[in-house]
């Protein structure tokens, strides 16, 4: 009995504490952070925002089962404890919309997915993943056609995906192909999917199969699975393009470049603005190169060292064209 009363007391104290101090935000991760680099970036970005502003942060890992995400979001909203609830991915707009309507006083932010209905308590940002992939495709095209030491005569480039999902099939893979075909229409893209984001050995094996098919450069969008491909590239003297964060230093010379998605900066930006009361709820945005979220490793010393200047220059041009909106990455030529 006594112990129970103690627990209740504890709970009330914590609850009271959460009401009394400043701004608080909850991150509902649609997945688990374990084995998932993009969420690691998100969490570290959010933590940076927290330490900068002093807002209190709560991270909830929603698990791998997509069906459980909405109930988790609902539970968080129902507590009323948080000033802002942040969640992720293109699978969530409907859930956010539904729950935002149920809790009109609760503020929501959705990253990497867009709620097109304008709800006064929801702000959302989508990322222009297609720009990221177009850049990668263009770069891969340039490399495979070049006479760089590990490039072969086959006009084949690879894409290694962790899994198949709508954004991958509808935007990322086509943009990658379009980018490559902008270099040379004869370039063929070899696509593999591991069916898992956390099996580096599978990634290694799939990369090997691609390399043996004449592919000389692979874009890996496969989380932990993709890391396995790097080793194979080093071993077989082939090239890799990384995504999301700069991983060139892991294998300089094999990882030629990375297309960056500054998800950490984006979430930090969102949280800081929210903290300051400046987040424009009721709107949505799509961020890409222009907004500084999508980037390329132009300044990496190893990039400069291993990639011929001609290619680097062409990349810069394309980068700026994308930034200025001169290229539609999803438009097939």
């Amino acid at each position: 009995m006594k112990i129970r009363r103690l627990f209740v007391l504890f709970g009330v104290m914590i609850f009271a504490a959460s009401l009394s101090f400043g701004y608080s935000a909850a991150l509902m991760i649609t997945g688990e952070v374990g084995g998932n680099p993009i969420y690691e970036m998100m969490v570290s970005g959010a933590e940076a925002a927290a330490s900068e502003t002093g807002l209190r942060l709560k991270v909830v890992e929603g698990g791998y089962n997509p069906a459980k995400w909405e109930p988790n979001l609902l539970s968080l909203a129902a507590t009323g404890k948080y000033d802002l609830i942040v969640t992720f991915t293109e699978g969530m707009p409907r859930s956010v919309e539904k729950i935002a309507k149920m809790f009109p006083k609760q503020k929501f932010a959705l990253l990497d997915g867009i709620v097109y209905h304008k709800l006064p308590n929801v702000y959302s940002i989508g990322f222009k993943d297609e720009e990221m992939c177009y850049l990668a495709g263009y770069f891969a095209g340039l490399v495979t056609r070049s006479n760089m030491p590990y490039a072969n005569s086959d006009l084949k480039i690879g894409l290694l995906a962790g899994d198949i999902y709508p954004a991958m099939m509808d935007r990322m893979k086509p943009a990658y192909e379009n980018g490559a075909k902008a270099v040379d229409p004869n370039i063929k893209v070899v696509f593999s999917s591991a069916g898992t984001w956390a099996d580096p050995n599978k990634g290694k094996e799939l990369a090997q199969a691609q390399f043996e098919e004449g592919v000389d450069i692979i874009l890996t969008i496969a989380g932990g699975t993709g890391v396995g491909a790097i080793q194979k590239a080093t071993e077989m003297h082939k090239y890799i393009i990384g995504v999301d964060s700069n991983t060139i230093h892991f294998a300089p010379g094999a990882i030629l470049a990375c297309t960056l998605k500054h998800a950490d900066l984006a979430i930090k930006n969102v949280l800081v603005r929210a903290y300051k009361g400046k987040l424009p709820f009721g709107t949505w945005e799509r961020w890409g190169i222009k907004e500084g979220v999508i980037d390329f490793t132009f300044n990496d010393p190893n990039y400069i060292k291993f990639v011929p200047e001609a290619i680097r220059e062409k990349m810069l041009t394309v980068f700026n064209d994308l930034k200025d909106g001169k290229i539609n990455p999803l438009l097939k030529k």
Partner: protein
Amino acid sequence: MISNFIHTTLVMTTPILLAALGGMFTDLSGMLNIGLEGMMLASAFTSIFVANATSSLLIGILAGLCLSTTLAAIMAYFSLSLRANVFVVGLATNLFANGLTVFLGVSLCKSKGTLLFLNAPKLSNIQIPFVKDIPFLGKILSGYNALDYSAIILTIICYLVIFHTPYGYHLRAVGKDPRTAISVGISVYKHRFLAFVLSGLFAGLGGVALSLPLKIFVGGMTNGRGWIALVAVVLGQGNPFGVFIASLIFGASSAFSNMLQALTDISPKLLLTIPFVITLIAMTVYAIRSKKTYE
């Protein structure tokens, strides 16, 4: 081309084969080891972490085996001494290893994501002098890492131990007919316990083979290989060479499936089913040919 394929297949087979050899010991003792997956995972993390920290491959491997064997011993203790259901305990082992490795990753490496251990010593591929220069066979026989070679050597050792030593006789007797074993003074408990410990050792080696050559750990990176090993155990019917062939069938069909991903535009998801379908067909064909009726 063919030699490449064989080479790849053998490399892919290694972790499964090692874990399956372990599972075979528990199978021979008359127990089902569902926990192979967890044991592999635990050792995959520990071995690369310790190897990285100590810069010693050997210490790393030993540390990995220590943890997987401990898990196996716990499993044995619960199922043999406390008479807990061996299946539930196996599931517990898998859950525990899955949770523990991520938890340790956070505590020790401050990261939940992909753990790269770039400073770990490299488990390099061994080129056998002269052999490597033989045109076709060179590629098949040479250029594997120490774990790949040891998997093959261990298969042979297991065969000798199981069919040509008193321990092997006793183990098989315990599995086939425990009452007879007891009647000639062979301890069923001891042999089953030891079989679990051995399965932990082998599954641990299988886990090492997943993380050490890559210098990477990702939570859940075993990705069902422990289960496949269990399939190989059952198909191998208590014979190490049978287990080897079963693992090989799976490895080869996986390599084939990967090749088709690179060669064709068929949906990767459909191609990923190939190893399972081929294994099922192989199993059925074997059953039909051996003409055993269900008793």
